[in-house]
């Protein structure tokens, strides 16, 4: 491999800067264009969170409100984690086509500190209440044999230490990759891309471990009796497709507003659509594999988790997930014209985001009334607490995201892979 000289590279950058798609108007939103939207979203979100607290007070049931809040938190964390994952994957495999969409994934990734803030609030609430949803906190490990064995992992000090590690690793990776990317916008130093690639190599390994153990701690451990080595991958599967469809929605909306013309073309939409298709199938594969092995082996401590989610109405939600999260998007995304059309993938994207929320609801919500006789479980009239909790977190998250999108350029300005991304085309 030969390296090009500094002068040759300067000529490449100049050529990129002259490309019609890289005109300043095309890759910047008008100043303050998203400021109003951002403020409205954050306002709505805070209102939603206040309503969630009100729900906890009105029904004097903090468990339900915390579960709704946790569903929202896990959904937005999944999307942000996906942003980090794809940014690192694009760097790692040197994906030339992705250069013009990478900034949107970076925007998602930079919401990770906010997500960790949401998780921190949840953690404080849990520890302060002595384990409302993380019921293992209230279990006496002297008398409970299973808890006796799980105590080395499931204890409050180590939970806090793990949270600090998770938040530290994710914030470090996100900030570092963001710094490289924005510094390159200013200086045009092509070796920042190399640094980002090296960071991504180790970063992906750290990401895999953090995502898996994060899922163990905040999703799987809600039922401390349950264990599944697949659970980390189950959550990871949600991070991948959800971040793809959010980026498809963001770029689609920006293109509707007449920006990013030529920079993000239907060729990019097609590729992101293909990845969405693949990872929707991946989710189904993971979800089924986990369920199938537990169903087959039929060991009480494992199958109890699924038994509880296949009764009391939750079996309907499971059926909706199987059909709506897999069969429908699978059949629709098989069609090439859908994957190549911004509106087509946007419609599927909104559908899939709804499925992401329902998936998290199905995993978390049954834990609120676990062990309570069916007659004492309140009816559906408390739905508004769930909606307030989920939308509250999601709106704050989206507001912060919108403000970040509005501030910076919509694509990396001097990425060495831009010439390839600007001319990207699917030959088949």
């Amino acid at each position, binding site marked *: 491999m030969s390296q090009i000289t500094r002068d040759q590279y300067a000529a490449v950058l100049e050529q990129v800067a002259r490309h019609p798609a890289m005109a300043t108007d095309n890759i910047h939103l008008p100043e303050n264009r998203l400021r109003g939207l951002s403020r409205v979203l954050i306002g709505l979100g805070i209102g939603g969170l206040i309503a969630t607290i009100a729900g906890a007070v009105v029904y004097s049931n903090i468990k339900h409100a915390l579960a709704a809040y946790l569903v929202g938190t896990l959904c937005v964390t999944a999307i942000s984690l996906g942003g980090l994952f794809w940014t690192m994957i694009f760097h790692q495999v040197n994906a030339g086509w992705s250069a013009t969409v990478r900034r949107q994934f970076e925007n998602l990734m930079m919401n990770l500190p906010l997500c960790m803030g949401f998780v921190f609030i949840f953690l404080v609430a849990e520890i302060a209440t002595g384990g409302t949803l993380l019921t293992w906190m209230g279990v006496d490990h002297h008398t409970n044999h299973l808890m006796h064995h799980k105590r080395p992992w499931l204890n409050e000090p180590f939970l806090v230490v793990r949270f600090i590690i998770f938040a530290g690793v994710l914030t470090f990776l996100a900030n570092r990759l963001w710094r490289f990317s924005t510094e390159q916008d200013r200086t045009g130093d092509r070796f920042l891309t190399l640094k980002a690639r090296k960071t991504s190599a180790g970063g992906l390994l750290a990401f895999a471990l953090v995502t898996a153990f994060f899922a163990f701690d905040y999703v799987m451990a809600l039922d401390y009796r349950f264990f599944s080595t697949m659970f980390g991958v189950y959550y990871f599967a949600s991070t991948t497709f959800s971040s793809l469809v959010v980026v498809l929605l963001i770029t689609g909306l920006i293109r509707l507003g007449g920006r990013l013309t030529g920079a993000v073309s239907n060729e990019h939409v097609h590729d992101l659509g293909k990845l969405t298709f693949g990872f929707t199938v991946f989710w189904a594969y993971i979800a*089924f594999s986990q*369920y*199938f092995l537990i*169903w*087959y082996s*039929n060991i009480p401590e494992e199958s109890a988790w699924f038994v509880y989610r296949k009764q009391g109405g939750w079996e309907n939600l499971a059926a909706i997930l199987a059909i709506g999260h897999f069969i429908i998007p699978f059949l629709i995304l*098989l069609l*090439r014209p859908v994957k190549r059309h911004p509106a087509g993938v946007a419609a599927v994207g909104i559908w899939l985001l709804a499925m992401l929320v329902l998936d998290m609801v199905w995993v978390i919500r049954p834990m609120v009334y676990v062990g309570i006789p069916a007659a004492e479980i309140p009816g559906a009239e408390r739905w508004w607490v769930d909606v307030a909790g989920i939308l509250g977190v999601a709106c704050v998250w989206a507001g912060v995201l919108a403000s970040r999108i509005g501030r910076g350029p919509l694509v990396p300005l001097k990425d060495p892979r831009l010439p390839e991304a600007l001319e990207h085309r699917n*030959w088949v």
Partner: protein
Amino acid sequence: MAVADYFPLPAKYLPRALQPAPNRHLAADGSPLHGLLAEFDTAPGVYHAAEHVRDAGFTAWDLHSPFPLHGVEDAMGFKRTKLPIAVGVIALTGAGLGYLMQWWMSAVAYRLPVQGKPFGAWEPFTPITFEIGVLSAAFTALIGMLALNGLPRFHHPLYKHEHFLASSDDKFFIYIETRDPKFDRAAVQKLFEQSGAARIDEVTEG
């Protein structure tokens, strides 16, 4: 385009209606003419010539180049293949039949109690349903691709044409066959000349 064009030998034994139309075109030496071959010296030359042939409405023709030419499928007016539709339909049919087969075996024909699980439970059927779906899809894709391309094919008159060997070296060719409904000896000759062919050859059958 008929199967008989690709399999000349079995075509002899086909009913008369399915036999290929007799060739009425003759080469200069009086032997049956299979097609006209135009040679081009440059890739852009053959690319633009392909656009002319496409616009003239020919269907039984091909372009030969020593290396892949990006975008030439547009210049040749290729449409996307319909094969994926066949693959999709047959894969879903195969998966459905595969499920039905397992359900019939486990829940109807030979009910074998396993751990007290329901006989017709969908869970154990899923992997095999998936596998049969993939198998049907893969076979349809492979066999369909071969059939649509007229493969396997053991001989083509171009192989006997000495000058055509340059297509794997440094020359580009466009070949229009006489079986094309729009084929007209003089018109094709004129089209090639107007497209800037460096040389035009007759290719005889055999």
